[in-house]
């Protein structure tokens, strides 16, 4: 088996596996009625996952810490979001803070 074939198998299985995981919820829901309490837990699960994603992508890079510029940018964005600033401002301020700090040589 040549390299291209192995590569195609890798991509193919990743695609099918990823789609199956995404599709499992909608597929299940059209067959089974999910009780109210379970729906609340599932919604909380999605929020917990997103929060963990925020923390790991803001504070870590690979297996180590992410430096200073990125966490600082996310912090600025987070404070603005908490103060109910417009979404566009939150995003631009987070990016500008990180980019600005890097321009100044902060990692």
């Amino acid at each position: 088996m040549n390299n291209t074939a192995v590569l195609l198998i890798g991509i193919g299985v990743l695609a099918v596996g990823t789609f199956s995981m995404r599709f499992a919820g909608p597929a299940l829901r059209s067959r089974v009625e999910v009780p109210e309490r379970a729906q609340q837990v599932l919604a909380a699960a999605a929020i917990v996952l997103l929060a963990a994603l925020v923390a790991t992508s803001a504070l870590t890079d690979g297996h180590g810490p992410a430096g200073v510029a990125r966490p600082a940018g996310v912090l600025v964005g987070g404070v603005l979001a908490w103060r109910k600033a417009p979404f566009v401002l939150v995003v631009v301020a987070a990016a500008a803070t990180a980019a600005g700090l890097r321009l100044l040589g902060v990692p």
Partner: protein
Amino acid sequence: MRSIWRTLDPGLARDIGLVCLADGVVGVSYGAISVGGGLPLWVPVLLSVVVFAGASQFLFVGIVAAGGSPIAAMIAGLLVNSRHLAFGLALSDVIGRGWRRWPGSHVMTDENVAFAMGQDELEQRRAAYWAGGIGIFVCWNLGVVVGGLAGSVITDTDVFGLDAAFPAVLLALVLPALRDRSTRTAALVGVVVALAATPFLPAGLPVLLALAGLLFYRAGKPALEEVVR
């Protein structure tokens, strides 16, 4: 489908547009990095269309370009994407029924899931999910092709601070849900678990372990309108 655009409030549409644009720029860098790493253009492009999950795609091309096995890259990608299982369970009625479940499931990303979770009404959730999903799908794939063809135009989006913009996007979108005390406690425990696990476990697993935070979650009494529904 037309009702999505009618339901979508202009402010929300603008916010989604901004995230689509940022995703497009990251797509350009992903395309450029992949081709720059020695992979043929079809690899990043095919991955983007059939897998359509940014973090797993970066991981996949990173492993393969470094000479790693595509099978190892596939397993790593599946691990990173496993959170989509929980997203699909939480948002199944937002994604829809019948044939819509197929394209609707495929366009699932962290961003449009967070946009949907941030809306109150089911109709708005649907509109945010679908507009975000389709918009990001189009921008991401266009970006990847442009980046792959143009090569080294943008390889490092960190210069623009985009690595800080994406966590900020998700944070801004989940903040309202964290006003609920029980959800907040579960999320905080989850964050601590994920951060503690990051140095030791492969990518994707720490975030999944955050679900342990749900042990601290207590579902509230169903709201009146929910009972009527």
